[in-house]
């Protein structure tokens, strides 16, 4: 992990994290971070992209155009179809960052929806990314750049 203060922008911190390419592509946007295993299926309302699961830590927040960050996926194998569905409605996240890719349907989901995916960081990426951070994802190289 590299951390540096950008010249001239007082207080801004830039962190670069190196992971692995799950699925290629380049994207940038605002981070939406879930601290526990996450699934799009049944947590996210397909029409609006808003997380509607009752009592969820991100209830009421939208995944649309976000860089979605979570430790790992979970749930029914039907999760494989959920990113494609969100994408078609126009409410998908721009990229997905996972701590681990152990949950396979989530990875297949990003591949068939053509959404950049980076996973498997030396340091737990969740520790340094917070909601609202600006994140640049270069999934071709497996690199993410976090600005806070």
């Amino acid at each position, binding site marked *: 992990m590299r951390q540096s203060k950008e010249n001239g922008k007082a207080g801004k911190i830039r962190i670069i994290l190196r992971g692995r390419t799950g699925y290629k592509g380049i994207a940038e946007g605002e981070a939406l971070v879930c601290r526990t295993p996450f699934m799009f299926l049944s947590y996210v309302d397909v029409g609006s992209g808003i997380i509607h699961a009752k009592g969820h830590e991100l209830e009421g927040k939208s995944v649309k155009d976000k860089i979605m960050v979570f430790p*790992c996926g979970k749930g029914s*194998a039907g999760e494989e179809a959920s990113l494609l569905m969100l994408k078609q409605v126009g409410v998908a996240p721009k990229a997905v960052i996972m701590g681990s*890719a152990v949950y396979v349907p989530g990875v297949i989901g990003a591949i068939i929806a053509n959404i950049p995916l980076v996973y498997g960081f030396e340091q737990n990426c969740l520790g340094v990314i917070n909601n609202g951070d600006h994140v640049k994802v270069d999934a071709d190289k497996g690199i993410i750049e976090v600005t806070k």
Partner: protein
Amino acid sequence: MLNGEHGSAVQKAMELLVKVGNAYGAERMIDVTQSYVAFPLSEENQSFSDIIYALTENVTVKIPTTNLPLPLDLQRINELGLPESVIETAQKIMLQRMEIYRRIGVIPSYTCDPHFLYYLRKGEHVAFTETNVAMLTNSWFGSRTNIEGMSTAMASAITGKTPEYGLHLQENRYGQVLIEVSADLETERFDYADYVALAHWTGKILFDQIAVYNGLPKNIRPDHVKYMCASQIYNSAAGMFHIVGVTPEAPTLEAAFGGKKPAQRFIFGRKERAEAYEEFCSATEKKVDMVVVGCPHCSLNEISEIAQLLNGRKINKDVRLWIGTSLHTRALAERMGLVDITEGAGGLILTDVCIRAAVLPPYSEALGVRVLATTSGSIAQNAYRRSKGKTTAWFGSMEDCIDASVKGKWEGR
């Protein structure tokens, strides 16, 4: 196969498998001996369905392949009390899927309990979708599969290949977290619901790690483990677990952890069990409209238990009792007289249907189900969440559920 010499479906299948293999850094493709496939249960995601359809054009499956349930029980579709429009749409989808399966040579098992149909051996590489089926395959049989998507399972069925990564590799199959089940819980008397509660609670602390359960009875049945599989994955990522002294890769605690020390150790006791039950129970009203058993599909053993619990009693006239199972299990239950007992009492033993994902929701309102009772944690949570609280659920033992169907009210713990 990548160059299209075996046709476009095989080419597309290999392209997909290569992409997934690349995501995991797989070094090669390996042969798989069986597959377990599915189509989506509805057509609401047409472009996803199209991806699977494209994999079935002008091909037949290369290896023995069984399949997941359909949206409804086609034979008994008119007995369910569903609106005409629902029946029409479901019929159309089912007939179309059945035609494809027939054309490509899939064994039409339509069940989430397909292990009965093909033997599996320890170490055998297969490609199974559906979390409960894939987890039982890894955990109980010691065969090797990742939790495949519908797309990748179909790709493997028509190519006989899968990329070598994840749970196909020995180093990814060892346990990481030790779950000690407290002796004062009297695990030899555990009901299905207790196993659901155990696996649900465990899932919440695992994240992506593999659990090793210690302290479960040596005579635990595959039915019990099936319920654990269906429950744990809703909270965590890993596609298998071990039970010390029971499952094939865990003859001892040391073997389960591959000689390493557990990263963490937790104890599941009375308090933890009670917490899990509480989480599944969203109902407050005692009057029950529907009782659902069979997620995952009931085994012959469970159907036999239900018939014994009914034991001459009648199901309350205001309650539906639906039991989900496979065609082959129901056929044997019929021969044993169990179908007569259960349906004579007013229950329905349905085949081929996924009650959790295809019926409750989306049709809980159409069926007038405000309060349901079930042995399934995922039915209890799913029906409540996806109806946005309009349907509430009681969760409990087989005995409490069958009692509720007779009395019309919930008296369980």
